[in-house]
């Protein structure tokens, strides 16, 4: 079945996914997109990145894609939201 990307006010929406198993808290994403990512100072080996918001619009997507591109561990995925 064909899926359609979701648009709100004619703008694309995106979902951000974080793979916490692989995140070591390098914080490159925070430097690139401070409105989307923050540091959760956890009790684990590494501080973990957490999402401030997991759904974003086109305007915020540029910073999110930079975070995805430059994350040294490749733990971020930015995906267009599709109708189910």
């Amino acid at each position, binding site marked *: 079945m064909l899926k359609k990307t979701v648009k709100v006010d004619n703008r694309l929406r995106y979902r951000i996914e974080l793979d916490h198993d692989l995140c*070591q808290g*390098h914080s490159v994403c925070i430097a690139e997109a401070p409105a989307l990512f923050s540091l959760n100072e956890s009790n684990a080996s*590494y501080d973990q990145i957490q999402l401030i918001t997991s759904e974003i619009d086109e305007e915020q997507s540029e910073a999110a894609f930079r975070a995805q591109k430059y994350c040294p561990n490749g733990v971020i995925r930015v995906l267009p939201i599709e109708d189910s």
Partner: protein
Amino acid sequence: MTDSLQWFNLLEQNRRKVIPMSGANQIPQVSGADPSIGHLEEFNSDPLLFLQRVHKECGEIGEFDLAGLGTILLVGSEAHEAVFRANEEQLSAAQAYQMMIPVFGEGIQYGAPPHIERQQLKIQIQGLKHDRMLNYAGIVEHETTLLIKQLGKKGTIDVNQIFSDLTLKTSTHCLLGAELRSELNDEFSTLYKDLENGIAPSSLSDPFEKNERLTKCIRARKRLEELIGDHVDRRRTKGKIYEDMLQVYMDSKYEDGTPLNKAEITGMVIWFMFAGHHTSANTTAWTLLEVVKNPAYLSKLLEEIDQVFLKFPTVTVESLRELLLLDGFIRESLRLHPPLNAITRRVMSDFQYKEFTIPTGKNIMICPYVSHKLEKSFPKPLSFNPERPSPKDNFSEIAFGGGRHKCIGNGFAILQVKTILATLLKQYTFNLSELPEKYGEAMPALILRPKDPCELTYVKKDGQGR
């Protein structure tokens, strides 16, 4: 703490477990085991050739015997993911890497209880965060510029030697600051070499084997503790705050408020240096070698470097990001010549992979050198292609390992190699000094590097003379 007696007992337990299991789900066993020492001699003499044979004979999963230590080689992104996502309670890196204890010292990393190791790891990563990286690019460029002054207009370099020296300086400068870098002398280099030589293929099967190599390694560690301890004292007397890793170690406290003592600070320094020095040196050497051996991409690469330097007069994190083809050269060099090739975990409770059960007490090994040549992950795997698209998954390219134990210095390593090569290639033309087939591989101390001697000639470009 596991000592040599416990290690011996563990080997004895494992020796009994090497008997192949019966049934449909038996892990394939590689041929040619000696009745007393299994495949130890073959592994120690050429680990990469041996691991390639294991894969060829057994496929995705194959078992061999290192003098009683049953070891299972797992190959391919699916298997890597299963291993890298497993937790420490099931697959333990600490138990597999006991050979690092004499090098780093008791109470450091795998020689420390897990809750202390966790806090030490957290301290290490503080010095490798993005804001710190901004300083490191400038330091590496400065050190490379000093090298260029020494090189002059033309000559011959041994890439192993030159990049080992350079990365010792860059790492020391970023890690320990300008002062200790300026005091860097032959004694430091010798001490680091003695530490690095403390590890050999045989360390995997017998980490506490008494030999001259290990004695020198332990002595070198003690001497480094004196030198670094003196430096810490002087710095504390001055009271000045520095922007380097040493300052991070000096200022850090464990969760109970205890600061790191001098032995621990030394251990942290060695841990960082050990993880980053020769691996970066060798990656720089391999990449420059591949640049020279692949002239088809050279003009495009040089144009990219010139354009970036025109736009950014000095090296910064932003300028390095625009060096996409150089990035491709480094990643492809890491794929074909990964520095670390025996990524190991100890099975702490039976580990299920597909239809196979890997029993408690065995070791699991992942070998990037083998996995990076899988046709499925990398079409035409033996050809060098710096424009090769990155695999879509996180577990095919594993030069830095993966999961919770992935090398935390991977960003720093790429930054360092890129900065050195961009700075050198902007000013010099390099050529092979021998026929291409003379440049081979060697793997002393379990780190893959170009075979000695590995010489290139160089000439400064027009308009770049002093």
